[in-house]
């Protein structure tokens, strides 16, 4: 009996563990989302992964600037955004970006002066298909924080620019899977269908969906960003204008006006469309038969 004692105790402990596991298992599912995840990175990092995701997104920006980037101290003095990543030359975002990137200034002492021989001091952007170099960082950022929408939109923009349309679509669809209500991603997807696939019907469907999602978010009191509303409305109105649906185009521009920082320009376009609408509505003159 003495010899069996330790084994009996072991058996008893095993039985107790098994019983505990069966009792606790239904309750455990409600404890933490992390435990449910099938993503290794989510399990490893927990919510800290968002920090890493943000770091990798910034790394993409650093890569875009070939290493010339303000430090956290420079950014504390003059915060920087990332809109330039998808902005074209001449746009306000691009001009604001030029100003923000002028952070170095004259060196304060000989140490700083000498140190500048070992760092990159020229503000450049990747060009000539070298923009591909930012893609790994964006992909990593998306892996770590699938809810960071900007990652998908920026990556899709550059993938399209590099001629990788299928990859851009796949990535945007992945983003949509993780963020089904995102007007930003829907806008980019629509742009892809319109500009790359030349499929206005699909583009319209997606942009309409984007508008509906935005309105739903507004109705739910979530205060969504106005910028995607303007983007979708303006692009959809252009599409409608090209299709000859002037009334719908005007309707959309009215929506865009609400979100636009430059409503006068949109009003001008509305007036032009109204003129076109009026011209079409006029009956044909007798001499024209």
């Amino acid at each position, binding site marked *: 009996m003495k010899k069996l004692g330790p084994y009996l105790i072991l058996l008893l402990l095993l039985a107790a563990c098994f019983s505990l596991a069966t009792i606790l298992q239904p309750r455990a599912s409600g404890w933490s989302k992390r435990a449910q995840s099938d993503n290794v990175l989510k399990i490893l990092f927990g919510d800290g992964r968002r920090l890493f995701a943000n770091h990798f997104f910034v790394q993409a920006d650093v890569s875009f600037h070939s290493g010339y980037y303000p*430090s956290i101290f*420079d950014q504390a003095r003059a915060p920087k955004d990332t809109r330039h990543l998808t902005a074209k030359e001449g746009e306000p975002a691009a001009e604001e970006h030029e100003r923000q990137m002028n952070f170095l200034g004259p060196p304060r002492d000989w*140490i700083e002066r000498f140190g500048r021989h070992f760092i990159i001091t020229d503000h450049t952007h990747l060009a000539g298909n070298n923009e*591909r*170099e930012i893609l790994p*960082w964006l*992909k990593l950022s998306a892996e770590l924080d699938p809810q960071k929408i900007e990652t998908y939109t920026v990556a899709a923009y550059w993938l399209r620019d590099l001629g990788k349309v299928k*990859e851009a679509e796949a990535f945007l669809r992945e983003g949509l899977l993780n963020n089904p209500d995102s007007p930003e991603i829907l806008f980019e997807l629509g742009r892809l269908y319109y500009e790359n696939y030349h499929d206005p019907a699909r583009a319209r469907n997606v942009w309409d969906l984007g508008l509906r999602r935005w309105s739903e978010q507004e109705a739910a009191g979530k205060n969504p960003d106005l910028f995607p509303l303007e983007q979708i409305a303006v692009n959809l109105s252009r599409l409608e204008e090209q299709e000859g649906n002037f009334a719908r185009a005007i309707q959309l521009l009215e929506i865009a006006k609400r979100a636009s920082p430059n409503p006068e320009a949109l009003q001008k376009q509305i007036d032009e469309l109204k003129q076109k609408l009026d011209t079409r509505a006029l009956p044909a003159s007798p001499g024209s038969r």
Partner: protein
Amino acid sequence: MNTVLALTGVVIKEMYRRKDFYVLFVLTAVITLLMGSVSFFHDTRIVRYVKEIALLLIWVSALVIAVGTTARQIPAERENRTIFPLLAKPVTRAQVILGKFAGCWLACGLALIVFYLFFGVVSGSREHSWPLLNYFQAFWLQWVMLGIVVAFVLLGSVFFSAPSSNATISFVVVLGILLLGRYLNQVALQQPEPLRSIVYGLYFLIPHLEWYDVRDLIVYDQGLVGWLDCGLATLYAAVYAALLLFGAWLVFRRKALNL
């Protein structure tokens, strides 16, 4: 000189007979090759992220080797009592300090050569170009910087008998300088007096290790650092290392070593 060289040889033998270097190299190689094998959006021409990751791992590994190897030199000699038969020979304490420094620094250099060769192979296989002078500059500056680190850790090792304490403090200081050294003057200007003067004084006092970190120049295919600037940086490192070693000798020569 013979004595210093003999001590140098022993340190190098120790390094390649311990597992540290091989573990770090294998880790670096595996992570780099793993990251390099991942296809991002079916584009095989993406190369900078591999270079960035590889160089980061090389820097981390080199620092671990430098600090780890150096931190245990003198404490281990004392703890293992190997210092007694050594100092019972016609060896001065200055020679011990110099020999340990030279051994650790050369060991770091050998490790760096292996790492950079690997880096050259990996980046060359993707980029199909070998900017050898750039790689040499990056290697040289990093190696010279490690001279300052080794001297600093050696100074710490004559104060701290536990290698772990010395290693921890050294890592904190070195990483602090690498990450923040460049910006201390900005931080100083934002402070009220007398903190401003203290921080600015610290800014001038610390060895500016961040100068030697030219990874960005390699990753982003920038040009060479001027050779004169390279030479001045080397001189700066030599002076700093000499100062730290002198400090180490001043402390070590007074230390009683009891059997």
